[in-house]
């Protein structure tokens, strides 16, 4: 955590959040609030679990004013508007605040000239459409990852944001987590020698499901929920009723909506792999799908590095366990980087680990001891709870990076080229998985070599009237 962030939040505040805030970050008081004329007016489009979390962080940000919320689910929409208005009323020390527009149609938001930027946390099927429409309306964008549904969408997003000189920040917030940044710096400085392997968690794709119809909740615009995706009847497995949901992205099981765990979770780690290798404008050259026995996707890069996505722990039958690394380590939100002179593990929850102490010399580590002790007075019951809360607090840093880029008209850490390329790596993993064969990929032309079927999977027609 940055020192600035530590000052803003403070250890006691973090502890007071409690485990329940795993799905709803605390709205912190805004310190150093900018004048209203200097604040960036933002709208939040999509306020489910991820959107609500982002929205709450924005409410704590002294640079932003949340002026509108949007969701096709009336329950979520009203809940979000009430959250914002209650927070601003409390800040102004008055009984009520009415200044937040609520709409089910994001086009109303894009048509408002007073809105500078939008935060998009809809389902993946919408990301490219709303992002490009926002850019064409002159808005800057923060978009949750994976930032596209197809490789073609990714390229159009890059062209559109470049054309209009708009700021795009992908929601790959691990780039704003100190430990991943430190690992990147150490690896690029040669602390583990020549990089050979990057081991990433998350494996599993989506399917074309044919779920039975159920009755949508009252006030829900199911047609707008589907948006550009082919028609499917409402089913609560896609969208839990009357709640933000217990799974972050329940719809990612359906291939028409998303790419499954490889894109939903896996793209986070693949993004860090791309970043560490300096491949923000490139990608792998060969992708080998997993098999029922070998549940590992290989991503081979032209620089000789092998990136692997798998689930859980390393499999010694197929993967080399580096010397000194605990072979029963359960992977979740950490990545193992292996070089020819050692290894580093970096993760969301910290601390950094390495094969030799000198690899981490001079690195300011996240202090695990003072923060990881359970505190009986505050309700934080386990180090895991606390670590997760600290990670979520780091989400502020990624928003801060976006805001700074908006003010300076500079590129944020997860800019449109980087975010779409990282998302594409996950798409490549899926396409190799769906075709069931090794794919050769040209990252310059963005074409598969010698596989027409795979190339056809790069693009999908959208349900009318939507397009990019």
């Amino acid at each position: 955590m940055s020192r600035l962030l530590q000052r803003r939040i403070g250890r006691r505040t973090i502890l007071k959040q409690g485990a329940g805030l795993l799905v709803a970050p605390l709205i912190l008081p805004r310190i150093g609030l900018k004048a209203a004329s200097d604040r960036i007016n933002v709208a939040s489009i999509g306020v489910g679990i991820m959107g609500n979390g982002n929205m709450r962080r924005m409410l704590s940000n002294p640079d932003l004013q949340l002026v509108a919320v949007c969701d096709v689910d009336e329950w979520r929409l009203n809940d979000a508007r009430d959250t914002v208005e209650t927070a601003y009323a409390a800040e102004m020390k008055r009984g009520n605040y009415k200044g937040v527009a609520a709409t089910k149609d994001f086009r109303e938001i894009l048509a408002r000239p007073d809105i500078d930027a939008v935060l998009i946390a809809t389902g993946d099927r919408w990301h490219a459409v709303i992002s490009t429409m926002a850019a064409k309306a002159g808005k800057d964008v923060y978009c949750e990852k994976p930032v596209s549904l197809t490789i073609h969408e990714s390229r159009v997003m890059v062209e559109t944001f470049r054309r209009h000189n708009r700021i795009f920040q992908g929601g790959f917030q691990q780039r704003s987590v100190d430990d991943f940044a430190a690992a990147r710096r150490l690896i690029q400085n040669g602390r583990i020698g020549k990089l050979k392997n990057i081991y990433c968690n998350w494996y599993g794709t989506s399917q074309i499901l044919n779920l039975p119809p159920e009755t949508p909740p009252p006030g829900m615009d199911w047609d707008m929920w589907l948006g550009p995706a082919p028609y499917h009847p409402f089913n609560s497995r896609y969208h839990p009723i009357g709640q933000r949901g217990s799974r972050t992205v329940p719809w990612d099981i359906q291939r028409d909506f998303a790419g499954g765990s490889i894109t939903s979770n896996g793209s986070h780690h693949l993004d860090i792999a791309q970043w560490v290798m300096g491949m923000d404008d490139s990608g792998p050259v060969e992708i080998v799908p997993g098999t029922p026995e070998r549940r590992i996707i290989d991503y081979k890069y032209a620089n000789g590095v092998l990136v692997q996505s798998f689930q859980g722990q390393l499999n010694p039958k197929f993967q080399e366990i580096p010397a000194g690394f605990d072979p029963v380590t359960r992977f979740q939100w950490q990545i193992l980087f292996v070089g020819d002179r050692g290894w580093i593990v970096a993760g969301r929850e910290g601390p950094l680990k390495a094969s030799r102490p000198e690899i981490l010399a001079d690195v300011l580590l996240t202090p695990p001891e003072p923060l990881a002790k359970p505190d009986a007075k505050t309700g934080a019951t386990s180090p895991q709870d606390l670590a997760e809360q600290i990670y979520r607090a780091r989400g502020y840093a990624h928003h801060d990076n976006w805001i700074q880029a908006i003010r300076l008209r500079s590129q944020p850490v997860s800019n449109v080229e980087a975010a779409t390329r990282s998302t594409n790596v996950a798409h490549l993993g899926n396409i190799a998985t769906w075709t069931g064969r090794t794919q050769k990929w040209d990252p310059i032309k963005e074409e598969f070599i010698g596989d027409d079927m795979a190339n056809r999977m790069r693009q999908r027609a959208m349900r009318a009237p939507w397009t990019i």
Partner: protein
Amino acid sequence: MTQAAQTPAPAPLPTLEQSFELVKEFKVGTDSTVLIPIERAVMEVHGNETARAALEKRLVAYLGSSYSSVTRAFVCRQLVLIGSAASVPAVAPLILDDELSVHARNVLEHIPGPESDKALRDALGQAKGRTRIGVINSVAARRDAASTPVLIKILGEDPQSAAAAAKALGEMGTSEAAKALVAARGKGPAPVQQAVVDGTLICADRLVATGQRSQAITLLEGVTDASQPEHVRVAAKRTLSAVTRKS
């Protein structure tokens, strides 16, 4: 009790022949795993033209109106991957079906050759409302310049269709499309105007990419002045700057 004992083993998949029988009765809500053998068969014809053509022919037989929408959507998904001009006559009528239109367009967008272009162009004259907008978007995706006269006509119709046509004309990137976009400038409601400007910027980029620099410069005149929002002016100037550098 172990975890393995609690979890029932998945039912064995049907054979390919059984799967082709089951697809006949496939309805909304039917377990889609019964069709996995067909999906696998599609993947396995890679590199075998004879097998691909045979499987395509077999799949096309399930596009008739006696089959359910989900059956026909499933078949379209397979034809997206292995379809050829031979599929076009059976797929084309589905463009006019509101629910299946996106699936049919998806197939046609992926089949190279003039047959798909013609099917989509013909549908432009028959489809209505939202379905026609989808066809406009598919014509744009294929950059079928022969559709330009119809798109120009649609520019004068309802705002949603006109906006889609403006964007499609931009994708064409031809001098004829550029002239139509200049003529449409300043006409119609705000969403159409925004689409005309968007189409103009896209068209200019396409013209530059094909070496038609002077047409691009002419097209961009009028979208660089102060009446345009900053994000439009910057886009136009970016392209103009690129043209100047190359000259």
